[in-house]
C-alpha cells in the first residue's frame, strides 16, 4: 500500500527541502553576503548611523509588508491602493492635529485608511473583482479624495511633541522600529497561530475546499485587504509624523517595495503559503541591497534593473518549486 505514497512523498520532500534551503537559509546567506560586500566596498556601511537609517526606513515599509503578506497568502495577488492609504494616513494625521489633537488624529487617519481597505475587501472578496483592478481603482479614488480635501498642497505638522515622539528612541531603539516590531510580531502570531491565519492559508491554498469546510472565505479574503489598509494607514501616519509634512504622493512606490519584499521572501504569489518572518527576511535583503548599491554609487536606473531581475527571479523560482512540489 505504501509504495505509491512513498515515492510521491520522496519527490515532494526533495522539492520541499529545496524550498526550505532556498527561501530560508538561502535568504539568510544572501543577507550575510550583502552585508559582507557592503562592509568591503564602503566604510560607511557598517556604521551604527547607516544601519539605524536602514532600519528606520525599513520599518515604514515593513509595516506595509506585514499586511501585504496576508494579501498574497490569501490569494489576493496584491494591493495597489497602498500609496493612497499611506497618503490618507499621513495627510490626515497631520492635517487633523490642530482640530482634534495628535493622537485622535492619528487614530482617525488609520481608521479612515481601514475604510479604504474595507472597500477593497468588499470588491475583491464579495463582488469578486480582480484585486489588481479593484485596488487600483479604489486607490485612485482615495487619492483623488485626499487631494481634493487638502487642495493638492503640502500639509505640515503643528504638534512638535508628536514629532519628537515619532522621531525619538526608546532604550536606544527608534520608536518607529519598535512599532514595526510589535506589528510584525502581532502579524506573525495572527498568521501562524490564530484561527484567522489558518483560514487565510486555507483560503489561499484551495478556495473552494475552504468554502466547503465552512471557512467564511469571502470575509477572510476581504480581511486581508483591511489588514493591509490598516497597516498602510499606520505606516503613513508614522511617515507623516517623522517628516512633519505630507503631500498626496507621499506613498508612491511603497506598494512595489512591499510586494518585492514579500515575493523575494518566498511567499507564493498564488496564495496558500508564506509567513511574516519570510516576508521580513525578503525585506531586509532588498533594503540592504538597495543601501549598499546607493553607498557603492550604483546609478538609480541600474538599481531598478537589478531589483526587477530579483523579482522576476523570485517569482520564477516560486513557480518552478511549486511545480516540483505538487507534481
Amino acid at each position: 500500500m505504501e509504495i505509491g505514497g512513498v515515492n510521491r512523498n520522496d519527490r515532494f520532500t526533495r522539492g520541499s527541502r529545496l524550498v526550505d534551503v532556498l527561501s530560508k537559509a538561502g535568504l539568510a546567506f544572501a543577507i550575510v553576503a550583502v552585508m559582507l560586500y557592503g562592509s568591503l566596498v564602503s566604510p560607511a556601511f557598517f556604521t551604527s548611523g547607516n544601519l539605524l537609517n536602514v532600519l528606520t526606513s525599513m520599518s515604514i515599509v515593513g509595516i506595509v509588508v506585514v499586511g501585504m503578506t496576508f494579501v498574497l497568502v490569501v490569494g489576493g495577488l496584491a494591493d495597489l491602493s497602498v500609496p493612497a492609504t499611506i497618503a490618507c494616513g499621513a495627510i490626515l494625521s497631520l492635517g487633523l492635529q490642530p482640530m482634534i489633537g495628535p493622537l485622535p488624529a492619528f487614530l482617525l487617519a488609520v481608521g479612515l485608511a481601514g475604510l479604504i481597505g474595507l472597500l477593497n475587501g468588499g470588491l475583491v472578496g464579495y463582488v469578486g473583482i480582480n484585486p489588481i483592478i479593484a485596488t487600483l481603482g479604489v486607490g485612485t479614488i482615495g487619492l483623488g479624495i485626499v487631494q481634493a480635501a487638502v487642495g493638492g498642497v503640502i500639509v505640515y505638522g503643528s504638534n512638535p511633541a508628536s514629532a519628537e515622539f515619532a522621531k525619538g528612541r526608546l532604550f536606544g531603539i527608534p520608536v518607529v522600529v519598535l512599532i514595526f516590531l510589535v506589528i510584525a510580531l502581532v502579524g506573525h502570531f495572527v498568521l501562524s497561530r490564530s484561527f484567522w491565519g489558518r483560514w487565510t492559508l486555507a483560503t489561499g491554498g484551495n478556495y473552494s475546499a475552504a468554502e466547503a469546510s465552512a471557512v467564511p472565505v469571502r470575509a477572510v479574503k476581504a480581511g486581508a485587504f483591511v489588514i493591509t489598509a490598516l497597516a498602510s494607514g499606520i505606516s503613513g501616519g508614522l511617515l507623516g509624523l517623522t517628516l512633519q509634512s505630507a503631500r498626496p504622493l507621499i506613498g508612491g512606490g511603497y506598494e512595489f517595495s512591499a510586494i518585492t519584499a514579500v515575493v523575494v521572501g518566498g511567499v507564493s504569489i498564488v496564495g496558500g503559503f508564506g509567513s511574516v518572518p519570510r516576508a521580513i527576511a525578503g525585506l531586509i535583503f532588498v533594503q540592504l541591497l538597495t543601501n549598499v548599491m546607493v553607498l557603492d554609487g550604483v546609478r538609480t536606473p541600474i538599481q531598478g534593473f537589478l531589483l526587477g531581475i530579483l523579482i522576476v527571479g523570485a517569482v520564477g523560482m516560486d513557480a518552478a518549486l511549486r511545480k516540483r512540489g505538487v507534481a
Partner: protein
Amino acid sequence: MTVAADCALDMRGISKNFPGVKALSNVNFAVKFGTVHAVVGENGAGKSTLMKILNGSYAPTSGTIKVGDAEVRMRRPADAQALGIRMVHQEINLVPDLTVAENVYLGRMPGKWTFLRKREMVRAAAAVLDELGAAINPRERLGNLSISQQQLVEIAKAYAAQPRIIVLDEPTSSLSEHETAALFRILRKMRDDGIAIVYISHRLKEVLEIADEVTVLRDGSMIQTRPIKGIKAADMIRLMVGREVSNVFPKSPAAIGKSVLRVEHISDGQRFRDVSFEVRAGEILGLTGLVGAGRTEVARAIFGLSRLVEGTVSVNGREVSINSPSQAVRAGIAYVPEDRKGDGVVPGMSVRENISLPILRRLTRFGRISRSADRALARDSVKQFSISPPDGERRISLLSGGNQQKAVIAKWLAAKPSALILDEPTRGVDVGAKAEIHHIIGQLVAGGMAVVMISSELPEILGVCDRVVVMRDGYASEPLLRSELSEERIMALATGEEMA
C-alpha cells in the same frame, strides 16, 4: 485483422526503485494489438508507476521495453507519444477556455507554423467525435461541457492522434452507467481497428465486461496475467488483496430512529425542482441517477454552497435557514464533496490542519488555536479511521486517494453533525479502502447518524443503502425500499426509458 495476434507492447523484467522503496520488481507486461488489456490492483500496487514508465515519465531501473518489434528507450512523454502511445488520465487535462476542437488538437494543431487552419481543425475534430459516436459540438467551449463529456473529449484527443497503444486510467470514474456503455462501444471500435488498449480500473464488473485479458498487480509485483474468460470478480479481488474479501459492501444493521434531515419541495430554479426526502437516524439514504441529474446540486444547496429558491430544510424537526456552509455546520449538517481534489482538501496543508478546519473556532481561545487540542483531534481521527501513514503532520496531498477521502470524512465528523451527506465517497479508491469507508459509514449510522450517500455505482447503492431516491433531469423519485430495488429498476428510473 491480421495484426490482431501481434504484440504491441512487451515490457520485460521491469523494476523501478525509488530511494528506499522498490515500487516495481521484475514485472512482465505484454499487450497485443486489437485487444483490451485490463490492469487491476489496489492503490499503491504499482499500476501508476508501470504506466508512468510506459508513458515515458519514469525510466525503469532495469528491464526492457519493446513497442512493436523494436526495443525502445523513452526519456520523456514526448518520446512515448512519438511511438504512438497515448494516455488518458483519470483527471481531466484539458483547457476549459478553448473549444472542443482546439483541445482535441492541442499541441499538434493542423496547419503551417503560424496560421492555424481553424476550419480544417473543426472539421477533423467533428469527424473524430462522430467516429466515436460522441454527440459533442466541436465549437463548444470545453468548460461548458459536463465532466463526462469532457472525459469523452479527452479520449477523442488521444484517438485523434492515431495511436497504436492507448492507456486509459479509470476512464469511467466520472461516468454514469449509461455513459459507460457508450464508452465501451467506443473502446470496442478502437479495439476492432487494431489499437492495443490498456484499461486501468477499480471497477471489476467493467473489467469483466470489456477486457480480453487482465493483469493483476500487488505490492509492485505482477501476480498473474490471464484471459478474462473463466475469471470471476471474486478471483480478481483475491489476487489483488491476497486474501478473501468476504463482503465488499458490509451493511451493519442499525436501529432506525426519528427523522433527522428533511427537505421539502426544494428547488434551485435551475438544476433541480421539487425535491423532497427525509433521512432518519441510523439510516442510509441513497441518492442516485445519471451524472448531471442534479444530485450534487441538491447536496450543495442543502449545505449552503448554493441558493435554494423554494422549499424548506429541517434538521431534527426544526426548520433551518442555510445560506452558508457555516450555518449548515451549526445546524448539524456536514457534506463530503464529490470533487475531492477541488473541494475536499487544501493540498498544501497537513492532515491535521485539514481535519480541524471546519471546527477551528471550537479549538480557539482568545484567537489562538490550541496546539494540543488541534493535535489531539488529528491523532484521534488518524487512529479512528486508520489513516495511513498514521502521521497528522504529513501533507494531505501526499496520501493516497482513499486515505485522503478518509481524512475528509474525519474532518466532518469532528464537527459532530447529525446528518452527513457523502457525495461519491468511494470514487477512485481501491477495493480495500472502499470496504473501510463502507465500514466507517456503517459505524456512523450505528451511532445514530443519518447519512445521505450519493453514488453512481449501483452495486454500492444496492449494497449499502436502506432506501434509495433516484433523480432524473432534476426531479427525484419517491424513496424506494431496498427490498423493492434492482439495478434494472434503478436504471429504468434514472433514464426514464421504461416504467417498471
